[in-house]
């Protein structure tokens, strides 16, 4: 305890491997941990706390994190949440998040509880060297200079070989944030359709498209899609592509974020026009503004069509587009009623 208070380093056993601990709120102590670890490759360092309540002092525990704390902690899991930056910023390696561990090892929990402050939780090896499961591992693979930084070694013999903790980030698509971005559409008999299958969803997409197709002569058309996981947003996009005569198979853009499909738009009178159907998915974006960085504005040319999944994350950007009349936005909400039944409603301001 005195060692931690004085900014010293301890090596301690956990349910995975030996960890190296220091007062996570003491910049000098954290610096020593970083020196011990060597080149960290810009990776952040997690901290060990005693329980969820203590975690709440240092990070914002959202719904997803709360679920994980309840189910799996203490245990070999690192839960990443938005940091309240009450710990040394060097731990976060430039990011806004902090990883929290509650080791399933009574001795460590007792130390953290008594100490009352979070303790760094990273394996006690120089980066790139062997993960240590016993004292010899540490001594063998660490330079003398680095070992000199350590003040205390809590030896619990050889630990069972358990892999390092699994890291999950809870800040992506936080349910609460998604809800804040949700739009509501007033249901009328004109703007609402019921779908009983993926095929019907595609046909409804085609119907909705036809209503606004005329606008393409002078503007870009954006279909902003809202619907829970599995609601059929990609099916809707498949329906649009089919209507546009695109033969490529439309696959989920979740991983790639943007997929583009060139097609020829048939504008009666003026003839064929070379256009692009952009299929976007904001699911993996940390921030909605990334879509601007990825060139959303350059897509907004007359004749082009943009379908965006998870509009909740970019709603302010889309509203600005509507305001500046840069494109016509059709808002589409897909609600799951029963297993295969969906209610699809749409709306668009002139």
């Amino acid at each position, binding site marked *: 305890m005195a060692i931690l208070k004085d900014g010293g380093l301890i090596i301690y056993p956990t349910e995975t491997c030996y960890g190296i601990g220091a007062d996570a709120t003491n910049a000098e102590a954290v610096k020593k941990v970083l020196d011990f670890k060597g080149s960290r490759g810009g990776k952040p360092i997690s901290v060990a706390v005693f329980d969820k309540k203590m975690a709440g002092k240092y990070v914002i525990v959202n719904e997803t994190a709360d679920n994980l704390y309840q189910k799996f902690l203490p245990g070999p899991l690192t839960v990443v949440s938005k940091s309240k930056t009450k710990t040394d910023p060097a731990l976060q390696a430039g990011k806004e998040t902090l990883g929290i561990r509650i080791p399933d090892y009574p001795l460590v929990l007792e130390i953290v509880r008594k100490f009352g402050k979070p303790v760094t939780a990273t394996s006690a090896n120089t980066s790139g060297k062997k993960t240590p499961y016993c004292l010899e591992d540490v001594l063998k693979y660490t330079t003398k200079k680095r070992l000199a930084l350590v003040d205390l070694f809590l030896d619990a013999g050889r630990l069972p070989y358990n892999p390092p903790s699994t890291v999950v980030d809870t800040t*992506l698509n936080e*349910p609460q944030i998604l809800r804040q971005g949700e739009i509501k559409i007033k249901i009328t008999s004109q703007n609402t359709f019921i779908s009983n299958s993926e095929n019907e969803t595609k046909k409804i997409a085609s119907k909705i498209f036809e209503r606004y197709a005329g606008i393409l002569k002078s503007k870009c058309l954006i279909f902003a899609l809202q619907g829970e996981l599995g609601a059929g947003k*990609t099916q809707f996009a498949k329906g649009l592509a089919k209507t546009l005569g695109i033969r490529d198979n439309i*696959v989920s853009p979740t991983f*790639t*974020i*943007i*997929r583009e499909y060139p097609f020829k738009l048939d504008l009666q009178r003026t003839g064929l026009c070379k256009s692009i159907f952009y299929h976007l998915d904001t699911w993996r974006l940390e*921030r909605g503004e990334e879509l601007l960085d990825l060139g959303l504005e350059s897509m907004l040319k007359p004749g082009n069509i943009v379908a965006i999944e998870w509009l909740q994350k970019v709603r302010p950007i889309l509203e600005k587009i509507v305001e500046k009349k840069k494109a016509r936005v059709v808002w589409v909400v897909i609600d799951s009623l029963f*297993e295969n039944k969906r209610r699809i409603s749409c709306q668009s301001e002139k």
Partner: protein
Amino acid sequence: MKKNFIILAIDTSCDETSVAVTRDDRVLSNVIASQVEFHKEYGGVYPMLAKRKHQEFIDPAIREALRRGRVAWKDVDAMAVTVGAGLAPALEVGVAKIKELAKKYQKPVISVSHMEAHLLSSFAKNSKGNGPFLKIKPQFPILGLLVSGGHTQLVLMKDFGEYQLLGETLDDAAGEAFDKVAKMLGLGYPGGPIISELAKTGEPKYELPVAMVNSGDLNFSFSGLKTACLYKLQKLGIVADKPAFAKPACRSGRASAGKQFYCDFAASFEKVLIESLMVKLKKAIESYRPRQIVLGGGVINNLPLRQASRKVARKYDLRVFIPHNNKLLTDNAAMVGVCAYYQAKRNDFVKDIEKLDRQPNLNF
């Protein structure tokens, strides 16, 4: 072609800015920018925006790859860049950089397909020359199963440079299914590692449909498995069954489920996902009679998937090859360098560097 052909390779196909140096089929360095300490160079703030991240990381990543590979610019024989498939604005960063470097250093350029590079990742050797294809030579045709966050493909390789796409996903990639199901369960991101970890202590007792068993072709579909998981979780009361009408507070019934439930559900999902892949792997083996099998892509980190693939292969007396290092599975430039080496051997260089452009929809 000369021996000890040194290539500097760049991959900016999606999230990672990666630069590698290869000598023939050996990897001398494989730098993935998010894992390198560059922060000092731009004030310590990690850029959040995808394209900007590539622009800021690429120069330090090139320097670091050359340093770690102990190679100077004058020793570089050619440069390689991924032109597709991927995220167009990200690919543009790599292509623009290669054009700039080609002008500056007057080196030949090789344009590489990201998925071909994944397919050839098992041919990569480490700096000492060790790798999967060491004692055993490649015997064509080779069947490749590529499974990642953005792709799920079966490819027949008749020779280097001669490929036939046999099947691919019609909707979601397998890796994406892991992420989405993890989200339904409230497990955070990414979904692969945590689902695999929970599945270890789970019993696959929930019945889920194996996708596309009777489709008659070699394509995959994982969107159906995703919705099947959703319906199952609704029935079990874990996810509200009428989210449209539920009040936010009662949307989630997760509180009622215990830890074992998560492990069991993860095991059930993982089992069915692997089974969906194996059904098509078997079918591809029977239809095309390959002599060897290679695996590639980030989802190949999943051990039960490796075991299942080996088990299937053993039935047909086939050997499975997996990259020697896990870093070669997720997106990386070393595989691009190795792929480029085989392209250089068949004289497949870019003829007009000015016309080089990104091809976000590039496929086999």
